[in-house]
């Protein structure tokens, strides 16, 4: 084998390795939180920027959503059943465990939160 062949071989191997790694490697909790109010997209927030958003619909329905690194929770809600608050933290890790675990929904107030992990299967 000549030196040039080795260079070509090496380059192809490197490209293949990089591509394989890029495709297989988990995205380390990167992704978004998408908030919907009455099924309409209201906000799209990056998961790497901790923040709190308040959705006050002006009719007494108020939801406070906390985004933290790698996850999201319903901080508070004015709804009567509090199921959304009781659900607690939804993280990329917990969502990867099973289907449908990446949603927090407050049915009475019409607010839903979707966690979209970049490495979702």
């Amino acid at each position, binding site marked *: *084998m*000549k030196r*040039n*062949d*080795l260079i*070509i*071989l090496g380059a*192809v*191997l490197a*490209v*293949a390795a990089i*591509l*394989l790694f890029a*495709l297989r490697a988990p995205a380390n909790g990167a992704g978004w939180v998408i908030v*919907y109010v*009455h*099924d309409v997209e209201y906000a799209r927030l990056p998961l790497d920027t901790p923040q709190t958003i308040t959705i006050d619909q002006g009719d007494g329905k108020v939801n406070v959503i906390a985004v933290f690194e790698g996850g999201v929770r319903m901080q508070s809600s004015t709804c*009567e059943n509090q*199921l959304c608050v*009781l*659900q*607690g933290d939804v993280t990329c890790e917990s969502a990867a*465990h*099973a*289907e*449908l*675990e*990446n*949603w927090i*929904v407050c*049915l009475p107030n*019409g607010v*839903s939160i*979707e966690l979209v992990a970049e490495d*979702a*299967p």
Partner: protein
Amino acid sequence: MEVGKRAMDFKLRQKCVQPVAYTLALILLCAVPLAFLGGCTQRLQRYEATYLSLFDTVVTVLLYAESEAEAQQAMDAIYSDLARYDALFDIYETHDGVVNLKTVNDSAWKQPVAVEPELFALLSFGKEVCGLTEGRVNIAFGSVLTLWHDAREAGIADPEQAALPERSALEKAAAHTNIDDVILDAEANTVYLADPALQLDVGAIGKGFAAQLACDNARARGVTSLLLNLGGNVCALGTRADGNPWRIHVQDPDDPEAALATLELSDASLVTSGGYQRYYTVDGFSYHHIIDPDTLMPANYVKAVTVTHPDSGLADAFSTALFNLPYEEGRALAEANGVSAVWELLDGSIVWLRLDPTE
């Protein structure tokens, strides 16, 4: 000019490559795009949506499609199917231009009422299920369930005044729940209620039946990988795009943050019945919405039961039936009907039938 020159350079270099190395390079070059495709499944993207306006619950649709346009089209079709079934199976409101279950309850005791094929199919299924579950699920139980529904709504709206339905009223209503008084004519697609005080309520089967219809329609439209969740009635079409089964958490009634179990599902449905979702409180005791046809009171045999079955309507029906039975009797019924189940008993112990926890 530039491009042509580069191509020529490449050709010139190729000549210097030894055959073995050339073959290896070719194999590797082929492997790169194959890694991208990941066995042809990676091209399918995951799309999700929730709808809060259907069946008075949360509806989640999860599907794989090749493009956003294709996903949107599939989602829209599923939504419009579900919206149609929601309207048809509604016992509380009439809808413009549709003969729905409320219309049937209001008028089918006067004369037979012609209904849409899906509603007719649901009612036929309801009669069949009443037999299969030995009466534990009875769509003719509407008069009793309405008393509980009204008491619950009033109790939630005004907790101070919350009260149970009158015992005498419950017993009077229970006298009008004979499934044989629901008379279906398959030739004319009509329903007739031979007992004027009988009311239909498909709460125990409607969502599961609708989910199965919507899934079947989606399959016919070419969808191969779909998970449809109608407020806990989970209907799976196929598997995930990577070929693995869908993994579904079964909630622990005592801890909303914890999972009781994770079940794997492909081409099957999973439904949980428990007393912890729809309930109200009277004098410090909570009363849920699943009513035992024998006692006319909320069933209190098990904490929760989850069933899986290839048919979503049957999964829905049997989860209610098993919740309405003591564990041993429920187990016998499940075994006789090919139903897989997991019970959480009143003492907190977990019992599995033909199912395995994945962890």
